[in-house]
């Protein structure tokens, strides 16, 4: 096969890689992108998008099931519903299909050449791709590593059979009767709650003393409460030991006792790890930072002409971080002056209720040596939240005490993921409490909780 030469080669067409390639194409950079599976990566095909589809289906199903319960406060009643998971999954796959086709189209429109296959470095300037039709050699002036991450496997619970990762969980053709979730982080809880709503008896096994260990207790309290309402058993301080001989999952509980959790399927969600092997890392000489690729503030690795973006470069392993890095690298390759100067990377947890965190938490701000002012406004005092039957949760804002510059904003509540836009914008623009307090927020919306939290921090909340 004839060798290809290009200015920019992107390895991996996940959110980081495809954004990088599209942007580079827009800027007239001669760009090639290599992906072994479908464009879109984990996010579009087996991560963010399919899980949100499943969560939506589960929410809808639970809603009608509650209507069918006969004592719905809204006065709606209907016959007992059922769900055909095959159709649900097919619907989800159609969404994924539309999006991956869309990404492929965007790449084409930007003039990017897409090659399907597995890429492997031969040296710092050359990559070989195993395609269906043979080996393709690509020489590139600049190369971007965007290989992403994969679920962490537990040695005593290898994936296969009853033990599944999030990937398989998003393609189950029927709802398991009993599901054990190992790992109470955001992926485990998002999927565990969805399956509980779809009718599974879910047990969450978490080794730490609380679920969602990255969030503080105030933020997780409404989620923990909801876990209880959904009948999900949460075992904290408990360790998974392996599959039990007669089926189910053997665990060691917090008090050291051995116990078997009944389970048809065991979903292991104990984190993700960067994909560091299988693409010829050993052929090039790049420095690592722990288990990740070391990068500078322009996403350059220790090797000239090689960049790395996304999950291979460290935490937080989030699609929007990868996208921002990808966009930046494309512009750098096109000769523009750019470097990483983002003030915050929002994190959203699509549990029920949702959690959003942007910037610093109160503890982080205090650890950074800041005197802070904190304002918290409960959705119980928000009219819109009441009409949506979702009064649980709050908006919380953390600002510097001396000049009121906002350091962090968090919220927990139904639908608060959409508030993340306002939160991020406020921090990125360097807003002070007065800026938020001085902005009219539409009534009646949950966003009023945002302005009220700022007013609360200033000492004069109106509706509390």
């Amino acid at each position: 096969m004839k060798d290809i030469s290009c200015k920019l080669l992107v390895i991996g067409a996940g959110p980081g890689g495809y954004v990088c390639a599209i942007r580079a194409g827009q800027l007239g950079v001669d760009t090639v992108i290599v992906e072994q599976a479908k464009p879109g990566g984990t996010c579009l095909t087996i991560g963010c998008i399919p899980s949100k589809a499943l969560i939506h289906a589960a929410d809808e199903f639970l809603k009608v099931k509650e209507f069918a319960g006969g004592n719905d406060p809204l006065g709606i009643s209907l016959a007992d519903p059922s769900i055909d998971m095959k159709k649900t999954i097919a619907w989800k796959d159609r969404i994924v299909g539309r999006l991956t086709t869309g990404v492929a189209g965007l790449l084409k429109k930007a003039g990017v050449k897409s090659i399907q296959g597995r890429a492997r470095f031969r040296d710092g300037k050359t990559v070989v791709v195993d395609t269906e039709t043979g080996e393709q050699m690509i020489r590139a002036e600049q190369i971007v590593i965007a290989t992403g991450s994969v679920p962490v496997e537990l040695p005593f619970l290898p994936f296969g059979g009853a033990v599944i990762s999030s990937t398989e969980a998003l393609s189950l053709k029927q709802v398991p009767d009993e599901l054990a979730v190992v790992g109470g982080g955001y992926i485990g809880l998002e999927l565990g709650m969805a399956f509980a709503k779809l009718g599974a008896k879910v047990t969450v096994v978490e080794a730490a003393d609380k679920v969602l260990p990255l969030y503080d207790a105030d933020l997780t309290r409404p989620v923990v409460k909801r876990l209880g309402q959904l009948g999900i058993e949460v075992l904290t301080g408990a360790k998974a030991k392996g599959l039990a001989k007669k089926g189910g999952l053997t665990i060691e509980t917090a008090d050291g006792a051995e116990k078997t959790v009944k389970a048809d399927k065991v979903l292991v969600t104990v984190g993700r790890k960067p994909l560091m092997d299988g693409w010829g890392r050993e052929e090039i000489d790049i420095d690592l930072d722990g288990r990740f690729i070391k990068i500078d503030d322009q996403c350059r690795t220790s090797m000239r002409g090689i960049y790395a973006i996304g999950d291979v470069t460290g935490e937080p392993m989030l699609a929007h971080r990868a996208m921002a890095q990808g966009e930046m690298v494309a512009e750098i390759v096109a000769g523009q002056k750019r470097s990483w100067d983002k003030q915050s990377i929002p994190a959203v947890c699509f549990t029920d209720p949702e959690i959003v965190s942007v910037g610093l938490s109160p503890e982080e701000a205090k650890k950074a040596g800041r005197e802070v002012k904190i304002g918290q406004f409960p959705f119980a005092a928000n009219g819109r939240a009441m009409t949506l039957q979702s009064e649980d949760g709050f908006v919380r804002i953390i600002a510097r005490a001396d000049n009121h510059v906002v350091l962090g904003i968090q919220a927990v509540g139904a639908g608060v993921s959409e508030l993340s836009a306002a939160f991020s914008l406020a921090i990125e623009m360097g807003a002070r409490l007065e800026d938020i307090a001085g902005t009219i927020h539409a009534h009646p919306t949950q966003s009023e909780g945002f302005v009220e939290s700022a007013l609360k921090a200033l000492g004069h909340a109106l509706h509390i």
Partner: protein
Amino acid sequence: MSEHTIKMPDVGEGVAEAELVEWHIKVGDLVREDTILAAVMTDKATVEIPSPVEGKIAWIGGEIGETIAVGSPIVRIEVAGEGGEAAAKEVKADAPTAPAPAEKVEAKAEPAPAPAKAEAKSAPAQQKASVATSGAPRQKGEKPLASPAVRLKAREAGIDLRQVPGTGPAGRITHEDIDGFAARGPQKGVAAGLQRKDGVEDVKVVGMRRRIAEKMSIAKSRIPHITYVEEVDVTALEELRAKLNGEKRADRPKLTIMPFLMRAIVKAVAEQPQINAIFDDEAGIIHRHQAVNIGMAAQTPAGLVVPVVHHAEALDLFGCAAEAARLADAARDGSASRDELSGSTITITSLGAMGGIVTTPVINHPEVAIVGVNKMAIRPMWDGTQFQPRKMMNLSSSFDHRVVDGWDAAVFVQRLKALLETPALIFVES
């Protein structure tokens, strides 16, 4: 809320106006009692104006460099509670020692709505908390605060945001700040090598610099100068000076050439009183002073000042030395009083080791003479049979040619030369 007006204080000595030389605050700032608001300058003294109350700056009157009449309002402060204007009497320059009106104001402060936590605190404590939240400019070393668009603009212009002062709330850097910085700011990180530069830095001439500029203009435009340069053999004087300094007596200051020159001037003007004089050219009168008050032009961080050794005729050599040293220190650290900076009848200017060969000193108007000391150096001098190494020093002296003829100027300088070359003559009673 009420307003408290602060007026230009009467800084004494019948001064009708003063020049604003520095604002320490801007509109919107919160100030506490005794916060310095501004500095004003009259003649050569700078006075700081403190705030007598706690509150928020609502208005400031005047630009730096503007001359403002005594009694005109210069700052208005919004004060929480009542009694602002009523309590606001004219503020004296020494207000920090008498902040009486402020106490009333504070006592009546509105209970500010405070976060629940602060409820237990007293009212003044709450006020202090709000003071700290003022839109202060960004502290040194803090991360610059700027929107993504501003950051992008800076990046593309090659501007390091850490170097850019922010004018927005909490020191936020605005688009205008970037534009302004790009137009005039220091372009750091530019590659080395020769480059054309088009920037012009505009420096407003205010305060001390303006005073100096005005005085120099008057001196040079009104006084037709005659400058006379003569060399002086100071070998003998230097021997004497070294001997006296070698004694190292605790009660005697170290001697420079200055006290000798001062004593020589006292001796010389005794014979030529027209040299130690003030010429009031508007009235057409020459005031011949019996007191010999010798100004010593001195460089300070703020610029040129002229502290005055008063009554040099009544001071001996060591007295002159001690007084000159004391005044030089006072001038340098800015503690010299108005009196110590005025009243001279004749002036000496010296650049010490930087003195060069010749200078053309500008007369300290309205005096009529100034004596400039040039650098001392060993030069080969012909004694009639051979060259001798001699310690030589030039005196460059200027005179007001309207009232001092060239002949008289020459006589005066020759007299100084004779006294300095044979220093014993300085000490011989006539």
